Each structure stands twice: as C-alpha cells, then as structure tokens.
C-alpha cells in the first residue's frame, strides 16, 4: 500500500521540479534541466502505475481510496457550519485530500504517461530554443496542477488544479512572449477560461449550499440518499439543474466548447509540445473529468444532460466544418480537438459516461501523436506550418509519416485502431439511449465523423502525399527528427493501435474491460429518473453484473446481490439514468448496432477517399474544392464563421458598431464617461458651488461689509463734510463775525424771548 499511502507524492514530484527550475533553473545546464524535469515526471508515472496497481488489488467493487493529508479550509468541528437547502447542517470544510477511484486512476495513468512522453519529446524539440529551463519549469508546474485536479477529493482541490492548469496554459501559450500574437493568444486563453471558472465556482457554491459538503464521496452519498426528495421538489430540482449547468459552463471554458472555444485555435501559438500536452491530451479533458465526476448530480437534472449533449454535438460539427478549410497544420488539429471534445460531451450528455471517458483515453493517444507528429513535420520544414507550402514528405521523413498516418486512421475511426472503438461506442449510445431521444444528434455526429475523416486525410495528403510545394532551401533542409522526438511518436502510435482493445464492446466479441472498470463510478441512479428505465433501490450496487442488469432487475434480486456490499454503498457514486449497457455478454445485441457501425466505417472511408482524390495532385497553386464549388461557403468557413469578430463587437468591445461600443470596453467607456461627467461632475459641481459661495462671500464682504459698514460712514462723513468745510476759510475775522452772530442770537434768545 506504499504507493497509495503516498499518493500525494505524485503531484508533489513535478512541483518539486518546477520549484527547482524557479530557483536554480537559470544556472544549471540543459542536461541538468532534462534530468530533473523529465526525471520527476518519469518517477511520477512509475508511482502512478504503482498506485493504480495497488488500488486495483485493494479496492472492492471500485470503492474510492481516499487519503487526506491535512485539513485545509475550515475545520470539521462545526465552527463554520451553515444550514443547507434541505434543512441539515453543512460544513465549510475542504481538505487537502486525494481520491483514487477508477475514474481518476484512468486519468492518472494517461496524464502521467503521455506527459512523460511529451517531456521526452520536448528535450528534442526545444533543444535549440531559448528559455529551456523556463519551458520545463512550466511543464512541470502544469503536471502538478493537472494531477492535483484529477487526484483531489473535493471540488475545491479540483478547482485549485483547475486554476493551475489555466495559469500554466497562459504561461505556456505565451512562452514566446516577445511575439505579440503569442501573448495576446495567452491572454485570450486565460480570460475565456476565467469565464468558465466563474461557472465552476458558482456551481461549487451551489453544490455546497445544497449538500453541505464539497467532498466527492459525500456529495455522491447525498445524491444517493436524497435523490427522491430532490426530484420531487421543483425548487431543489431547479437548483441542481442550475448548479450542473454552471459546472458545465466551466467545462465549456476549459474544454473549449461552444461558445468558449475561441481560445483553443489561438493557443497554437505556443510550442508544439504544449499544444500536444495541454490542448490535446490533458488540460482540455479536465472539463470532461469534472462532468464525469459530478455524474450523480447531472443525472438528477436531465435537462442539464440534454444541454450537455446538444452543446457537444453542435460543437463537434461546428469545429469540424471550420477544420475543413484551415491551412495551418496545427489549426486543423486544434479544431479537430474541439470537435472531438464535442463528441465526448455528447457521450456524457446522453448518459454514456464510460463511452465518453473511453474516448478521452483514446483521443489522448492519437491526438498527442498527431500534434507531436506535426511538431516533427514543422521541425523538418524549418519552422513552416502552412500546409500550402508542404507536400511530398512521405518519403523524406518516414517515421513521422508512418506514425502520423496511424494517428490519422485512428481519429478517422478505421476499424482495428483505437479511435474506432471509442467513437463507435459513442455513436451507438447516442442512437439507442432513451428509446432514441437523441437520434438527431446521432445524425449530427455521423456527419461530423465524415468530416473528421475528410479533413484529417486532407492534412495527411497535403503534407505527405501531394507534390512538394516548398521553397528550395527548405527542401534541402528536410531531415528526420532526433530520436528523442521520434521514440515518443512510435510509443504513441503503438498506443493508438492497441489501447482501443481495452474497450471492445460485446457486439464485437470483447468484454469491454474499460466500461467494467468504470462501473462503480457511473452506477445507476435511484428512482425518479426521467428515463423509462426502472428505478433502483436507495443502495447502489457496485458489482459488475448488477450494474448492467439494473434496468431489468427488481429491487429484490438486486438486494440479494447487494447485501454484501451494503456497507460500501456509502462510498460509491449514485446511478446514472440512461446507462444502457448492451456491451455485456448477458445482453442481447441488436443487429442495428452492426448496421450503424458499418455506416460509420463507410462514412470514414468516404471521407478519406474524397480527401485523397481532391488533394493528391495538389501542386504549387492548388485550389480548394469547396472554394471552387461555393466560394461564399469557403470564405465563411475560412474566417471561422467570423466568431472572433462577433465577440469583438459584442463582448470585448474592441470593435465598435459606429458610435456605440459594446462589451467590456464599451462598459468601461460608459462607466468612464459616467465617472468623468456625473461623478466628477458632481465633484466639480461641488467645487464650483464652493467657488460660487466664495465669490458671493467675497462680494458681500467687499461691497456690503466693507462698503456699507466700514467705508459707508466714512463716505457719509466726507459727503457731509464737503459742504460743511466750505465755511472754514481760515480767516479769523470771519470766525469772529460768526461768533458775534452767535452771541447776538444767544442774547436774543434769552432777552427778547
């Protein structure tokens, strides 16, 4: 149990590598960087293998292994408790805990495995680039964040990893930060992701308010015990729907679905290993992981599931149409990623959780392969990424060609390779679930499969098969990549071929180990499901057989099976409606499945054939077939449906509609105007008023107080004195005369009167 007990070391190792790069990276040699950074990831992979191995031996019926390292937020003693929506008491507590169950073990394996291969590849690809230690430091930081995301035992830990991968995505996309387009692409990725993060946070808080906890095991327990209550109450049902939709919003941001996919094509500005690791195999699958982890809640809100399915399907076909006409090799692969992620969400939305996870698993292999292969091609072409200037490389870089060809066949869904099994599983489930509720989406997914085959083979044809269209000096320098790059390609190619056999469905004679492995996580939900499948009892069953037969079994039969596992029921996830699993041997297999399987293979072959025919003879100035048939359609697709421009008009406000500017900049402008005119106007007005009062005071003081009060009497005195002084001539005899007159008057008064 060593590896399980020390499961926290697995994320810690890459963090150690990142920390060492942060502190010492500049001073140490390239070899030392390689040893440390690649070494920690190799160690992490080995430990991950060990942990999963020990887990499979330890766990009964897929019960999750939980290891809590310490209590991080809040405490368990009830200091921070609050009332939940159902009337109980919830705890504000989030541990630094690690959870290993079938779902996270799958992710653990392919994240560390493919991460390891990409680290090895990067030593070759980035050998001549500057900032070598920085690149590996960021890659290690990314590994740490991703591992925290998938190993966390509660939503908060997951969010820590969620944010961390977003940060690393920003750092790595903007790795060539001196290039303006790269730094703006990094900004775009982070900002669009942030919108999703708001959704995740609000969703987490909604779950916290509803269930009183954020631990995955406790939430699943909650859903299991209170599922009926929730479905019965419209208020609670709406609450769950809103919470799940918020989580899905976060998944749209992280996993690049409509409408938040716009960052992924621009993220190709980063180095190719980054595109491979982050934007093909690992980070973008975080959204799928979250939805899969919350499958209990999603199953309580069928409306959310429908939204997930529809969004996934629409994204798939939308991105596929754009990918048909792109010229940058990495852009085609980026849109392909978005399209395939749409497939995965379609699977989750229709209830085929295991199929979706399986597609994640296989997709990681062949998409990483395709990206690394394209990196190899770019390396051979001395940095040229535009397919219009490639061609005829099949003879010159054979290893890259063969591996990429294998990857293309895998993604197109050719039988025998990994992609066929996973994609077909999704298609079948979409058709058959809920008595054909999602058949329209099947048509959408079918057309998308055709388009996927077409554009992938277009890529291969233009790059490897058609006539050389490059300049002569580039042609001279074409060389195969070093071993550090080609070996991971080979490993991934082998994976792309054989990994699919883990999930061979029953219809083709396999036992679908993959799905069985994941049963406990996606076990069916209790009564009240909006589907027509029979409801289960409150205890879920974790046994492999019982899970599949749940639709047909009665509670009584199930209880017999489940008696032994009742104690473990508390730690298991709740059931999912719509989990029809005809993959087991006990079920009857409809012939329709074979027909549909055959149809999708035909579609793939048709796509391949059309692409090969259209492009095999592409010379220096070849024409796009769509352009020659319907140029307006070509232009719309080539300009990505003008979505970025629309976002500029509506949301960022970089472009204005005449005098009006919408979006964030528009709001900023409006607020600035408000602040400058209204608020500052108020301030200025107060100042103006004060000045006015001051001037009135001044006038009052100058004219009234000084004028009337002080100077007034003086002026009056002078005015009165003017005439009065005229009688003072300075002549003494005049004064004497006046005195005599006075005397006369005096005597007159006293004598005569």
């Amino acid at each position, binding site marked *: 149990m060593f590896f399980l007990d020390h499961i926290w070391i697995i994320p810690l190792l890459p963090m150690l590598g990142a920390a060492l790069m942060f502190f010492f990276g500049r001073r140490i040699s390239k070899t030392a960087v390689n040893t440390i950074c690649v070494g920690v990831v190799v160690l992490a992979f080995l430990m991950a293998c060990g942990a999963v191995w020990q887990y499979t031996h330890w766990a009964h019926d897929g019960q999750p292994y939980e290891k809590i390292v310490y209590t991080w937020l809040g405490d368990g003693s009830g200091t921070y408790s609050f009332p939940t929506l159902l009337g109980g008491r919830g705890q504000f507590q989030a541990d630094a805990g690690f959870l290993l169950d079938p779902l996270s073990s799958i992710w653990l394996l392919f994240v560390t495995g493919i991460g390891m291969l990409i680290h090895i590849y990067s030593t070759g690809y980035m050998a001549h680039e500057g900032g070598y230690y920085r690149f590996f430091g960021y890659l290690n930081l990314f590994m740490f964040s991703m591992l925290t995301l998938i190993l966390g035992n509660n939503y908060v830990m997951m969010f820590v990893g969620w944010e961390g991968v977003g940060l690393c995505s920003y750092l790595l996309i903007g790795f060539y930060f001196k290039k303006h387009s790269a730094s703006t692409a990094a900004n775009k990725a982070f900002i669009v992701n942030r919108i999703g993060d708001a959704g995740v946070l609000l969703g987490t808080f909604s779950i916290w308010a509803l269930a009183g906890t954020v631990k995955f095991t406790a939430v699943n327990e909650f859903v299991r015990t209170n599922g009926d209550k929730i479905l019965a109450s419209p208020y609670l049902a709406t609450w769950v729907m809103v919470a799940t939709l918020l989580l899905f919003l976060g998944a749209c941001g992280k996993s690049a679905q409509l409408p938040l996919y716009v960052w992924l094509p621009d993220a190709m500005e980063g180095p190719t290993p980054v595109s491979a690791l982050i934007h093909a195999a690992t980070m973008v699958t975080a959204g799928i992981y979250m939805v899969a982890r919350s499958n209990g809640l999603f199953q309580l809100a069928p409306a959310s599931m429908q939204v997930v399915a529809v969004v996934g399907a629409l994204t798939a076909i939308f991105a596929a149409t754009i990918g048909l006409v792109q010229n940058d090799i990495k852009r085609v692969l980026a849109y392909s990623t978005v399209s395939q992620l749409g497939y995965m969400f379609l699977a989750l939305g229709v209830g085929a959780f295991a199929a979706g996870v399986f597609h994640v698993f296989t997709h990681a292999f062949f998409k990483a392969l395709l990206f690394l292969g394209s990196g190899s091609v770019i390396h051979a072409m001395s940095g040229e990424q535009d397919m219009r200037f490639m061609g005829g490389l099949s003879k010159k870089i054979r290893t890259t060609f063969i591996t990429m060809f294998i990857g293309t066949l895998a993604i197109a869904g050719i039988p025998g390779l990994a992609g066929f099994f996973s994609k077909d599983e999704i298609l079948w489930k979409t058709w058959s679930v809920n008595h054909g509720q999602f058949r329209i989406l099947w048509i959408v997914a079918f057309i998308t499969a055709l388009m996927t085959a077409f554009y992938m083979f277009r890529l291969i044809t233009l790059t490897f098969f058609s006539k050389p269209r490059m300049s002569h000096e580039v042609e001279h320098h074409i060389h195969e990549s070093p071993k550090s790059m080609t070996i991971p390609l080979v490993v991934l190619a082998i994976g792309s071929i054989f990994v699919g056999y883990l999930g061979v469905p029953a219809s083709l004679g396999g036992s679908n180990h993959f799905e069985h492995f994941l049963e406990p996580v996606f076990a069916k939900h209790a009564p009240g499901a909006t589907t027509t499948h029979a409801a289960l009892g409150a205890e879920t069953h974790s046994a492999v057989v019982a899970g599949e037969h749940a639709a047909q079994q009665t509670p009584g039969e199930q209880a017999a099976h489940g008696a032994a596992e009742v104690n473990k029921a508390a730690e298991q996830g709740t059931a999912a409606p719509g989990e029809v699993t005809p993959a087991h041997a006990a079920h009857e297999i409809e012939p329709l499945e074979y027909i549909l399987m055959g149809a999708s293979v035909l579609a793939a072959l048709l796509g391949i054939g059309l692409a090969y025919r259209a492009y095999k003879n592409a010379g220096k100035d070849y024409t796009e077939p769509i352009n020659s048939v319907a140029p307006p359609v070509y232009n719309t697709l080539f300009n990505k449906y003008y979505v970025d421009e629309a976002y500029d008009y509506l949301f960022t406000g970089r472009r204005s509609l005449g005098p009006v500017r919408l979006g964030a900049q528009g709001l900023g402008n409006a607020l600035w105007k408000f602040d400058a005119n209204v608020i500052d106007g108020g301030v200025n007005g107060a100042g103006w008023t004060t000045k006015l009062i001051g001037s009135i005071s001044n006038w009052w003081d100058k004219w009234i107080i000084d004028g009337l009060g002080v100077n007034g009497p003086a002026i009056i005195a002078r005015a009165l004195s003017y005439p009065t002084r005229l009688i003072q001539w300075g002549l003494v*005899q*005049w004064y004497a*005369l006046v005195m*005599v*007159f006075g*005397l*006369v008057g005096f*005597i*007159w008064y006293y*004598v*005569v009167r």
Partner: protein
Amino acid sequence: MTPVATTFFFYFLSAVAIIGALLTITRRNPVHSALSLIFTLLALAGLYLMLYAPFVAGVQIITYAGGIMVLFLFVIMLINLEKAELEEHFNKQWLVGVLAAGLLGGLFFYVYAKGHTIFPNTWNSLPEQNNTQQIGLWLYQRYMMPFEVASVLLLVAIVGAVVMAKKRI
C-alpha cells in the same frame, strides 16, 4: 445830585472816548490809530476817576496807556507798513460785520431800554481817600488767589512773547 461839572466832564470825556475809538478803527495809519487809542484810554481813565476809582484810573494810565500802547507802537515800528498803507484797509466782510455789530448794539440798547429802571440811582458813597488801600487789602486778602494766578499768567505771557518773537529759538 451831581454838580454841573460832573455832567460836563462826563459828556466831554465820553465824547473823547468815543471819537477816539472811532478814529482808532478807521485810521489807515496804525500809528494814528494807536494815538487815538491812547486818547480813548486817557478819557476812560478820567471816567474812572469820576466813578470814584482812582487806583483803577492810575493803573489804566500806567499799564494800558503807558505800557501796552508803547508796546503797540514798538511793534508797529518793527513791522514794515508802507506797503500796507497803499492797500485796502477794510476787508470784504465789513458790511456784514457792521451789521452784526449793529445788531449786537441794538440788543444792548434794547436791554437797557427795557431794564434801566433796575439800576438804582442812589450812589454808594465810597470814600475816595483810602480807595487804593482798600483795593490793596482786597487784592491781598480776598483776591489772593487770582493775584498769584495773574502773576503766573504774566510769566507765561513773557515766555510766550519771547518765544514767539525770537528769530532763533
């Protein structure tokens, strides 16, 4: 009852006094005015004698006519008056002045006219032999204070006159 000589002398002396006064105020030459004034003063001294006040008469002649008028004449001598003789010797307000004085006089005579019956006709028989002694006694007994004050006044007048008239203090 008064003797005839009294009446004659009264009228004669009064006429001299009044004519002298009139001449004083009308002469252009100040020396003539001064001389006229001396006549007036001497006539008044005579009138004092008639009023049984020999000491006052003596004081009048010695001090007034003998001292003050001499002083006047000295000053007239000091100031150059040839130019003044050529100018106007009545000022611009002479008419109004005469009018005012006339009014005053009118009032005086009105008072006299109305109330002359108050004055008794019986004269006091003052002995004229020891008039001076009596005045002397009175001065040093009853009027001791005014006497001393008068001496201080004269001292102040001396100092003042000296200060006024000095060329350089």
